[in-house]
């Protein structure tokens, strides 16, 4: 018996197969995760991601504090509503968690962090917040529903009052806006357009059912994983963790080393890693039949072995895809050991799929 979100009974009513995820009882799928995957790529699907932790930081020195805490630079958040994807690092450069930070106002930033890391994240955030006099409030009163897919925004906007809908539809990618007690963000974890809506728990069941009635298909963690992997997005615990820094996790783009006088936690370790060189995270397309899975060995002539960090079957490409951590000099052709046999795989640039379309040649 794990923790349950306010939508748990709705999931069970909709026929969900429930699994444990980071201590939460969450839907894996509602019958067919491949159908759910296609629904998100082609129309619209919805995910209950209320297990993720919404954390509000308030206080006049919030921005200054976040410039110390996060590897990306919140100075880039120059207009209210803008969001930033970033890692939170330990002093060795290891990734404590990846998160999205939303700039609500000069005295209010909102973080959304992973469920499996919530306790250590909150402890870390609170420890470092103290000298800045920043208040840290976990918003356990909110549910998060992600509505994703080409039709997602129009359908999700239908939950708002008619007078609010035009403004919701004008939210730019990677931005958010408040609507009363609702907070609507044009972000996601699928490679499709859509909203992540943070709403009071008391509104969640009604919102979920209204979305269901408007034809948005409930989708579980299974589809969430195949969608994010097709989109080339990392999963915490698989593709990044405290033993690896962002530069060897495909996340160099989320690290702001400039301006050089910003002294964020982990900075010195990243500068050393950049100087000394490190492994890299790449996309893999399996050229043969079979399925890539995490922990499989990646073999490349003349190089040390690499390792698959995430692997699955891609319902959009009808092939197996994955992410792997390999030596920097690894070439375009590698082999992956699957059940004792070596299979050919190709190193490809991610994303594999974006906005419903294949981004790589099969």
């Amino acid at each position, binding site marked *: 018996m794990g923790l349950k979100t306010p939508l748990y009974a709705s999931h069970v009513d909709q026929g969900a*197969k429930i699994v444990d995820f980071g201590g939460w009882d969450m839907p*894996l*799928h509602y019958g*067919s*995760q*491949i159908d759910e995957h296609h629904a998100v790529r082609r129309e619209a699907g919805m995910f209950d991601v209320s297990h993720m932790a919404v954390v509000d930081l308030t206080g006049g020195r919030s921005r200054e504090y976040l410039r110390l805490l996060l590897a990306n630079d919140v100075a880039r958040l120059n207009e209210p509503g803008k969001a930033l994807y970033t890692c939170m690092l330990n002093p060795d450069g290891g990734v404590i968690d990846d998160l999205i930070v939303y700039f609500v106002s000069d005295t209010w930033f909102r973080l959304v962090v992973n469920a499996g890391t919530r306790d250590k994240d909150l402890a870390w955030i609170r420890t470092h917040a103290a000298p800045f006099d920043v208040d840290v409030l976990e918003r356990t009163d909110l549910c998060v529903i992600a509505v994703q897919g080409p039709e997602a925004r129009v359908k999700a906007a239908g939950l708002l009052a008619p007078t609010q809908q035009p403004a919701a539809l004008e939210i730019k990618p990677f931005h958010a806006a408040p609507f009363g007690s609702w907070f609507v963000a044009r972000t996601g974890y699928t490679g499709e357009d859509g909203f992540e809506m943070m709403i009071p728990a008391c509104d969640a069941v009604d919102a979920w059912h209204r979305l269901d009635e408007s034809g948005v298909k409930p989708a579980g963690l*299974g589809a969430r994983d*195949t969608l994010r992997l097709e989109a080339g997005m990392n999963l915490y615990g698989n593709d990044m963790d405290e033993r690896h820094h962002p530069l060897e996790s495909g996340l160099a783009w989320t690290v702001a080393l400039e301006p050089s006088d910003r002294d964020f936690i982990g900075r010195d370790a990243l500068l050393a890693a950049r100087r000394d060189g490190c492994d890299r995270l790449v996309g893999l397309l399996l050229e043969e*039949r*079979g*399925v890539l*899975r995490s922990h499989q060995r990646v073999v490349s002539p003349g190089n040390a072995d690499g390792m698959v960090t995430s692997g*699955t*079957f891609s*319902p959009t490409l009808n092939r*197996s895809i994955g992410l792997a951590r390999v030596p920097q000099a690894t070439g375009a052709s590698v082999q992956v050991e699957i*059940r004792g046999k070596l299979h050919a795989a190709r190193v490809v640039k991610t994303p594999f799929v974006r906005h419903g379309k294949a981004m790589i040649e099969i």
Partner: protein
Amino acid sequence: MSNIPTDLHYTKSHEWVRHIEAGGVEIGITDHAQQALGDLVFVEVPSQGRALKAGEACAVVESVKAASDVYSPLAGTVSAGNPLLTDKPELLNEDPYGEGWLFRLETSADTAALMNAAAYESFLAEAK
């Protein structure tokens, strides 16, 4: 609820066995197994002529989430693997006792040691 045809025999690892001719059986995975695995995307069946021991891992079924071994319920020699599954692994989900069969075995072993439908149903109920 999973479907458990009464004319088949079953194993604790969720394979089924059907007599198709004298000395010949057909083997697959049960409806319960396909439901637990979820959408199947890759199937590897044993090649013709391979000699199998009872309980030997001889086929692999992979769903989106994980790979699982299939064990031969009986000793024998593989007479055929299901050729349709290469391109249509979803047959295992859609028709686990029919078009989704995995392989056929020539065998002199008898099925008495396996469970009948009622015993398999009780086994599933206890496992819950």
